């Protein structure tokens, strides 16, 4: 049993409403509740109902918000799991592609390295061979130049010798000419001496012989003179032929 006045000021329950009792109104013989008590009770009840209604509305709003939030969360979870699957697949494919690329890149790099090495070798060989070729050419040129110099030298030497020889020949000729002149002079002088000697001898002989036989002596003297002149002419011809040779 609840005394109306004792109802809790902040709220009211169904049981309290069922069990509520009011005091009998004063001044009335029978029946009738104390009006003030009833008014107070109604006021409290109205406040309690209003409060309950407010709370209900608030709770409903909370529920709606919570439901929406749950839906959002659920959507996000769904989407996340879907996106996650796609992401996983994409990342698997990406990894596979990177692996494939690196394999291909390795092969290409290997090929690039081999080719670069080959090119370097080739370039080295090319340069070396070019240098060798040039060196060979230079050497060949040097040998040629040397030979050319030698030939020139030899030619000059030959010319010099020829000039020398020519000169020597001229000197010899000159000497020979001198000797020839000398010999010729000697011959002529000798002939004159001999002729003079022989004429003297002849004169002496003829003087000796003439004293013995004057006629025969004159005849013999003429014959001897003719013979003497003829025999001396022969060496003159011999000397002339040497001069020409």
């Amino acid at each position, binding site marked *: 049993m609840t005394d109306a006045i004792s109802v809790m000021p902040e709220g009211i329950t169904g049981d309290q409403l069922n069990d509520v009792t009011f005091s009998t109104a004063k001044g009335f013989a029978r029946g009738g509740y104390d009006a003030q008590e009833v008014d107070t009770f109604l006021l409290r009840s109205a406040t309690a109902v209003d409060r309950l209604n407010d709370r209900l509305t608030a709770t409903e709003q909370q529920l709606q918000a919570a439901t929406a939030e749950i839906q959002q969360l659920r959507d996000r979870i769904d989407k996340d799991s879907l996106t996650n699957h796609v992401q996983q*697949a994409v990342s698997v*494919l*990406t990894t596979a592609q990177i692996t494939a*690329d690196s394999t291909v890149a390795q092969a290409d*790099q290997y090929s*690039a390295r081999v080719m670069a090495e080959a*090119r370097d070798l080739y370039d080295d060989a090319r340069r070396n061979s070019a240098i060798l070729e040039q060196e060979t050419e230079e050497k060949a040129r040097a040998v040629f130049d040397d030979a050319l110099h030698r030939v020139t030298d030899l030619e000059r030497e030959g010319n010099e010798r020829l000039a020398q020889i020519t000169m020597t020949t001229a000197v010899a000729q000159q000497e020979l000419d001198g000797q020839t002149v000398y010999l010729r002079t000697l011959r002529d002088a000798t002939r004159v001496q001999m002729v003079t000697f022989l004429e003297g001898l002849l004169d002496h002989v003829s003087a000796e012989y003439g004293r013995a036989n004057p006629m025969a002596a004159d005849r013999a003297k003429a014959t001897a003179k003719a013979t003497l002149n003829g025999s001396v002419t022969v060496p003159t011809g011999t000397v002339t032929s040497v001069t020409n040779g």
Partner: protein
Amino acid sequence: MSDINTAALKENFAAVAEHGTDAVALYFYSYLFLRFPETRDMFPPGMTKQRDRLVGALARIVSNVDQVDELVPYVEDLGRDHRKFGTLSAHYPAVGEALLTTLRHFSGSAWTDSLAADWAAAYGIIAGAMSGAAEKASQTEPACWDAEIIGVDRRTFDIAVLTVRTDEPVPYVAGQSVSVEPTTTRAREWRWFTPANAPGGTDFELHARLVPGGAVSTALVRASRPGDKLRLGPPFGRMTLDQASERPLLMVAGSTGLAPMKAMIEQVARNGGRPTHLYFGARSVREVYDGTALAALDECHKWLTIVTAVSDDIRWTGRHGLIGDIAAADDDWSGHDVYVCGSPVMVEASVKQLLATGVQEAQIKFEEFGEA
């Protein structure tokens, strides 16, 4: 792209690229192959180069996203070229999905619905232009041309002149390049080469120089044999003769950069001849790999003057030095149409030398041979 926030796309792409372009490309291809496994067969086993290309193309598209004049021809060429890989219109949405997923993945919390919508719209326009160009090309030319190697002439250990025969003539213009796949020896790897003949026939010369570690050049120079199959992609390239011009020509070629010059000289001869100077440079005597053909050309055409120089070989009895320096020093070329082709280093040095002697930039067309 007027209704697309291109500034946001550029900013987002820059932020994504900070994760490392290779990581981004790795994610892209992994996602693509996961979701659309049939696309894997279009690519070679090693994907390193492919990733560089993807990132390069994306970067170019994103940075030019505001300049439609630049962008449209580029993506149309990409679309036309992609037919050789077996790309179908059905593949474009797959790539789009992979691209957006990749961008979202690396954007993290910066990813927004409007960014997603802008990327999707931008990709739609690019893919539309690519597949449209592919569709248009499919009406006039095959996706690629089947070819066969009929002659292999290794001129040095790292330079080969291949004779290639196609089923039908490839409609290139002299000086243009085609991408080549050594189907027999290195399938699904494509690199650019320039036919060394004027177009029209089914046979042409291919000058290949070995790049150490280069997949295609190694296959072509060292491993190719007569009978090997090749596939050729559609021709591209702007280093071609100006048909309207009557100016004399100067061609400066380093090593196998000779190929486009030979093709253009043949074309000039067909057109009746024009005063032409060809400067050919090599490092060593042996690398003057096409001397016989050059001598024959010199003999044959009165309007053609050929100067060959060697930079590093004491055996060479002709002129010594870098070909760009020699050409630039020889004459005043300011009234010529100038063509330069060779290694990136050679092209850069030669162009610089020529510009320094008064040649105008607009006069010069040049092409570098890549690290194939």
